C-alpha cells in the first residue's frame, strides 16, 4: 500500500481548466474521498492518478516515485468504474483472473488468488456465472474483486455506488469501508454524494471548479468549513448565511444584527469588506420566546427524527432544525436565537472563513 502525493497538478482541455494547480497528500491506509458537484474536477484528478489522463503540468507521486507521466499499466493501481466495466464476454472467474494474466503467474496461483478475492467478497459461488446474469450488487462485488485481486498499491473508485439503488448503497458503503480496513488499502474515492463521503471517509477533499477547497476529516469539514462553498455544499440543508453590513475587525466578539447585537466567537482576523456573512448551521439555532430574531414560518419539512423550518425574516430565509414534536404552523410569528457559539464569519470579498476562537 502506498502514499499518494499530488503537487501543483494542473489539467486543461483546450480552454477549459478541469483541475487548477492542486495539492493533496493521501496517506497510507487512508480512505480519502474527493467530493464535489459534477464538473468540479474530481474525476479528472482521479483519472490523472490512475494514468488515464496525463497532467498538463504538475506531479503525482506514488510512494515517492513520480508516476505522473507513466502509462496506466506501469503504476500498479486499481480502478473501479461507475459502470463497473465488467467484461461481458467473460464469466466471473475470468473477469477476476484478467488482471492476473499479465503477471506471469502459474495457473494454480491465479486460481488461488481468484478464489481468495472471491471469498473475501462472498462471490465464490458465482465464479462460473455470466456477468450479465448478476444483480447490481454482485456486479459491484465482482468489480471490487477485479480491483483487489492483484493487491495494487492503491484503489481508485469513481462513484462506484452511483448506479445502485438507495437501500443497497448504504449496505455497500459499510462493506466497502470494512473491506478497506480488512486489506489495509489506500483508497481514493470520488463521489458527489456527501452522505457517502461523510460515512466512509477518513478525510474528505471538497473540490469546486477545479480547486481543492479543503481537505480534512468529515467532522472538521462539517463544523469548520473554510469557505462558503464548503459550508453550503456539506450538510442538508446547508449552512445559513446571514448578510452582515459591517466591517469585521480582529478581536471583535459581537456583531449588529437588525437592531440587536449578537455574540460571536472572538475573531482573530478582520476584513476590508463591508459586506460579510455570518454562517450558522440550522442545528445551531433554536426557537425562543423573547429577545430573538423575529420571523414568519414559511415552510415546514418533516423528516422523521427532526423538522426543518424555513423562516422568512428581514435577513432573508433562514433554516432551523428543531425536534420533530415541535408544533409550528405556517405563517406563525416566531423568534429564534443562536444555540451556541459555533458561528463562522465569511469574508464577503473572497468567501473565506475568518480565523476565530471557534475556527482554530
Amino acid at each position, binding site marked *: 500500500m502506498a502514499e499518494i502525493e499530488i503537487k501543483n497538478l494542473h489539467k486543461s482541455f483546450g480552454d477549459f481548466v478541469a483541475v487548477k494547480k492542486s495539492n493533496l497528500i493521501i496517506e497510507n491506509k487512508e480512505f480519502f474521498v474527493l467530493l464535489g458537484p459534477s464538473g468540479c474536477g474530481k474525476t479528472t484528478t482521479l483519472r490523472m492518478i490512475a494514468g*488515464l489522463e496525463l497532467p498538463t503540468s504538475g506531479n503525482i507521486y506514488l510512494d515517492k516515485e513520480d508516476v505522473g507521466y507513466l502509462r496506466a*499499466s506501469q503504476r500498479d*493501481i*486499481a*480502478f473501479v468504474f*461507475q459502470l463497473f*466495466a465488467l*467484461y461481458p*464476454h467473460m464469466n466471473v472467474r475470468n473477469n477476476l483472473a484478467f488482471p492476473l494474466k499479465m503477471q506471469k503467474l502459474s495457473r494454480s496461483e491465479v486460481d488461488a488468488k481468484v478464489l481468495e478475492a472471491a471469498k473475501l467478497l462472498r462471490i465464490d459461488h458465482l465464479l462460473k456465472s455470466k456477468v450479465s446474469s448478476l444483480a447490481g450488487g454482485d456486479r459491484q462485488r465482482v468489480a471490487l474483486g477485479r480491483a483487489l485481486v492483484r493487491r495494487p498499491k492503491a484503489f481508485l473508485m469513481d462513484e462506484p455506488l452511483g448506479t445502485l439503488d438507495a437501500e443497497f448503497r448504504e449496505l455497500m458503503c459499510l462493506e466497502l469501508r470494512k473491506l478497506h480496513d480488512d486489506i489495509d488499502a489506500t483508497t481514493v474515492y470520488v463521489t458527489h454524494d456527501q452522505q457517502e463521503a461523510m460515512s466512509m471517509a477518513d478525510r474528505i477533499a471538497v473540490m469546486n471548479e477545479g480547486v481543492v477547497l479543503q481537505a480534512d476529516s468529515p467532522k472538521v469539514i462539517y463544523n469548520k468549513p473554510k469557505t462558503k462553498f464548503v459550508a453550503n455544499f456539506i450538510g442538508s440543508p446547508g449552512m445559513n448565511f446571514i448578510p452582515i453590513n459591517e466591517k469585521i475587525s480582529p478581536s471583535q466578539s459581537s456583531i449588529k444584527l437588525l437592531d440587536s447585537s449578537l455574540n460571536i466567537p472572538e475573531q482573530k482576523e478582520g476584513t476590508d469588506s463591508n459586506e460579510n456573512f455570518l454562517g450558522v448551521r440550522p442545528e445551531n439555532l433554536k426557537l425562543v420566546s423573547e429577545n430573538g430574531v423575529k420571523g414568519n414560518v414559511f415552510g415546514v419539512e418533516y423528516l422523521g427524527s427532526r423538522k426543518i423550518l424555513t423562516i422568512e425574516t428581514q435577513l432573508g430565509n433562514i433554516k432551523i432544525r428543531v425536534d420533530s414534536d415541535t408544533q409550528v404552523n405556517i405563517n406563525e410569528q416566531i423568534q429564534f436565537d443562536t444555540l451556541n457559539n459555533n458561528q463562522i464569519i465569511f469574508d464577503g470579498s473572497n468567501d473565506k472563513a475568518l480565523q476565530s476562537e471557534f475556527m482554530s
Partner: protein
Amino acid sequence: MDTSRSPLEATGFSRKLAATIIIVYMIVTLIPITWMVATSFKSVDSAISYPPEVFFEPSLEGYVNLFTNRSRQPKDYLDSLPPPDTWYEELVRSREMVITGPSKFLPRYSNSLIIGFGATFFSVFLGSLAAYALSRFKVPLKDDLLFFILSTRMFPPIAVAVPIFIMYRKLGLGDTHVGMIILYTVVNLSLSVWLLKGFMDEIPREYEEAAMIDGYSRMQAFFKVVLPQATTGIAATAIFCMIFSWNEYAFAVLLTQFNAQTAPPFIPTIIGEGGLDWPAIGAGTTLFLIPVMIFTVVLRKHLLRGITFGAVRK
C-alpha cells in the same frame, strides 16, 4: 373489450397481413433459386425443353459437365475403348463423348474462396483498427477524413476501372490474387470503417481503460476487450464485405484471365454442344451460392442484432 393484450401488441389481422407479405416475398425470392437448383439437376435437353419441365428425371450431367472437359468421338472409336470405370465416364460416354480432363471450375472456385475470404479478412481487420482510432483518438481533420472515406463510395467502383487497369498493369498486379484482394479490400474499407466506427462508439471506453490499468497495453486491450465486444459489428461487416467480394463481376472480368480468375466471370463461359450448357451453369451457380450461404447462416444471429444495434440506447 379485450384488455388482456397490450395495446403495443399486434392485432390478429396485422399479424396475418405481415405473415402473408413475408410468404409472398419469400416465394418471389425463392422461385429463381429453386429454378436454378432444379436446372442443375436436369439433362441438357430437358433444361431447354418447351414448355419448361417442372417434373423431370434428375441427372448429374450438369455437375459432370461443370467439372470436366469433354470431346465428341465417333461411335466406332467409343466402342473400341475399354468399358468406363466410373459412373461419370459412363454418363459422358452415353452422350457419345469422352472426358479429356478436369475443367477450370475448381481452380476458379478456389480463387474465389481465397480472394473473397482474404479481402473480407483484411477489410474487417484494417477497418476495425481504423474505426477504433477514429472512435477513440483525437485525429486531426477527423470529420474530413471520415467524409473522404465515405466519398470513395459515392461513385460506383467501376467508374475508376480504367485508371486501375493501367495502374495494375504497371505494378504487375493484374491477374494476381494479391491484386484482387487489395482491390476488394479497398472497395470494402469505406463501408467497413463506417459500420465498425458506429459499433466502436457504442462500446464504453471504461472497458479498455480497465484493461490498461490492469497492466495491458492499448493494443492488447483492443484485441482482448474491445474486439470481442464488437463481434456483432464485425459479423455484420464481414457479411457485407464477403457478399461484395464474392459476387464482384466487373473488375474480375477486367483484371483477371488465367491465374486469378474468380468464379463469376468463369461460370457464364461454360459452353456446351450447340450453345450454353444450362445444367452446367446451373450447377456452377448452385455451388457458387453455397459458401456465402453457409457464411451468412453461421453469422446470422450476430447479423440480426447487428442491424438493430445502436438503434435503441441501452
